[in-house]
């Protein structure tokens, strides 16, 4: 194929029959939709990051520094809503699921390309409604991202509109999940056995099931808040025969599995990177697949561990505590399998693997903290303290977002056909790693010492740790800015990546970089297992 025709087929190439903007926002090409999500999610991530930095700055000393208490309440709510619903939940499935899943399967697109575009539009519409809610009505919501009743039904802030925004975002997730399930079932080539699917595809498949099964429950729950606020329905109001704990049940039935919507795809990314950079087949392929299934199922039955001190029955506490411990087992299986894959491998410490190792370290710490919170006795002590905030960020940021960063460093050369600077990528990772631990490990200590979460002010004895935490946030932000500059520069001006810069064996590495618009000519026939590196030379090994 000549360079010219290759360029013509490139999915990033201008489309002469459409305006530049139209060729993006009305495109049904899964790769272009992946880029649309990447731009939107990255933008919201940077906004959420700025809000987080402002909160940390406010907490550098006791008393008011740069804002009042109501602004602080609004800030942690909006930070949570943006980061959870607009960034972390859609991050890997929407960006890399769209970009990579059909190619890994050997398909030309997802099964419902127009529905895929509708999902992006719903995402943008939901985000728009959430943003409008900040500047209209009674001002930004101040309930926290959990929208707990009774406060969320009584507050004068513009909670109705922001809840409605999240309701719309839920539909985007449901449709994406439905699309991915159908894509895997309908577009998997008949010649590809299920047990030869890449682990990233498996992780997206299980995630999609969780999205389809639990997101409607959140949607209904959020609608019920709106009905409580608008017509005083009374479902959650004890004076009208309602039960406020019912809200917490319904909310966490979605929101705990949502953690697995965030983390399972990240685990899939790590399962791709580790074998490629160890030049060894994934250790315990079937165990990794099966553990993904168990995480998806058992992880959907542990939600009430968020409610141990809320007044649920003691029997329920015991049962949910037990189930929480059960879900730790498949997570540990994955960690052990990644480690065993590395063992005696021919390891190349390239940036994607370094990010994967950071993920394994941070997620393992976060998971172990989860066991402290899953034990009813210790949970009583640290519930609603900074320990929970620290743990949550270890899992969601150290897990899902570091997984997202790892995916960016792994697949960006495929997406844009250019490499970034490895030294800068490594330096940025170390900055982030140091900043992250300073920021969140101090929160764990403060939590054990009794610092409550969501408090605008604090006692002077917490100041030293609060200062360390705030300085950590600056270092973390510096690392993120460095990474963004490096990736953006590499994407535009970096050296040509070639089709297979890491020596991967899955199908996406057999097409050109950037991939052609139609992905494959005809149906590709799988000639090797996804982690069989025989006869594939990694460029870095040459």
């Amino acid at each position, binding site marked *: 194929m000549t360079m010219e025709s290759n360029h013509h087929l490139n999915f990033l190439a201008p489309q002469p029959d459409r305006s530049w903007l139209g060729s993006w926002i009305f495109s049904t090409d899964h790769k272009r939709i992946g880029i649309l999500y990447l731009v939107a999610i990255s933008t919201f991530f940077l906004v959420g990051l700025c809000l987080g930095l402002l909160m940390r700055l406010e907490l550098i000393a006791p008393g008011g520094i740069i804002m009042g208490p109501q602004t602080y309440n609004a800030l942690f709510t909006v930070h949570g809503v943006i980061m959870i619903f607009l960034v972390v939940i859609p991050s890997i499935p929407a960006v890399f699921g769209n970009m990579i899943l059909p190619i890994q399967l050997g398909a030309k697109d997802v099964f419902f390309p127009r529905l895929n575009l509708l999902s992006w539009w719903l995402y943008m519409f939901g985000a728009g409604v959430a943003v409008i809610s900040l500047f209209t009505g009674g001002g930004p919501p101040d309930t926290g991202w959990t929208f707990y009743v009774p406060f969320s039904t009584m507050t004068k802030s513009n909670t109705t509109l922001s809840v409605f925004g999240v309701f719309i975002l839920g539909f985007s997730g449901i449709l994406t999940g439905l699309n991915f399930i159908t894509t895997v*079932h309908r577009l998997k080539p008949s010649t590809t056995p299920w047990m030869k699917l890449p682990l990233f595809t498996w992780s997206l498949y299980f995630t999609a*099931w969780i999205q389809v*099964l*639990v997101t409607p*429950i959140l949607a209904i729950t959020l609608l019920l808040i709106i009905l409580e606020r608008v017509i005083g329905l009374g479902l959650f109001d004890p004076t009208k025969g309602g*039960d406020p*704990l*019912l809200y917490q*049940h*319904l909310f966490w*039935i979605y929101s705990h599995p949502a953690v697995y919507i965030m983390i399972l795809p990240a685990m899939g990314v790590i399962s791709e990177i580790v074998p490629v950079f160890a030049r060894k087949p994934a250790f315990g392929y079937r165990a990794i697949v099966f553990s993904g299934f168990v995480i998806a199922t058992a992880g*959907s*039955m542990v939600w*009430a561990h968020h409610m141990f001190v809320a*007044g*649920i*029955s*003691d*029997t*329920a506490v015991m*049962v*949910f505590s037990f189930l929480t411990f059960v879900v730790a087992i498949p997570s540990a299986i994955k960690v052990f399998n990644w480690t065993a894959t590395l063992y005696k491998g021919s390891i190349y410490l390239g940036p994607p693997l370094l990010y994967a190792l950071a993920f394994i370290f941070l997620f393992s710490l976060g998971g172990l903290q989860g066991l402290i919170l899953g034990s009813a006795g210790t949970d009583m002590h640290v519930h609603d303290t900074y320990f929970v905030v620290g743990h949550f960020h270890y899992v969601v940021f150290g897990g899902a977002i570091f997984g997202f960063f790892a995916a960016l460093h792994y697949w960006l050369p495929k997406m844009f056909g250019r490499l970034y600077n490895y030294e800068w990528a490594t330096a940025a990772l170390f900055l982030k790693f140091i900043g992250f631990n300073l920021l969140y490990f101090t929160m764990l200590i403060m939590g054990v010492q009794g610092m409550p979460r969501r408090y605008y002010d604090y006692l002077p004895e917490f100041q030293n740790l609060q200062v360390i935490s705030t300085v950590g946030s600056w270092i973390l932000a510096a690392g993120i800015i460095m990474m963004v500059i490096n990736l953006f520069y590499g994407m535009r001006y970096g050296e040509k990546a070639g089709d297979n810069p890491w020596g991967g064996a899955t199908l996406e590495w057999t097409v050109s970089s950037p991939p052609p618009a139609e992905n494959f000519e005809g149906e590709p026939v799988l000639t090797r297992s996804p982690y069989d590196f025989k006869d594939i030379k990694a460029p870095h090994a040459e």
Partner: protein
Amino acid sequence: MTDNLNKSYMSYVFIWIILLCLTALTVFCSTLQLGHPAIWIALTIATIKGSLVLLFFMHLKDEQSFIKYAFLVALIVLAIFIGLTFFDVLYR
């Protein structure tokens, strides 16, 4: 052809009548003071009604087995969610 069509319409009307009867049964049961079993009776009737709508009006019965399994998974998951939530209330 017309015979088949008439048969199909008749089955829809028949299902509709069953749904109406089940609704009447739900309303009747709610007037009885049954205590805890009341919720299980209401949920069972609702499940049967939902299944009938899916099987006949949404043509699930004519679909291939994977779609039927997918529906079954949703049903089981919902049963677990409702079961675990009521389990808490039961022991409070």
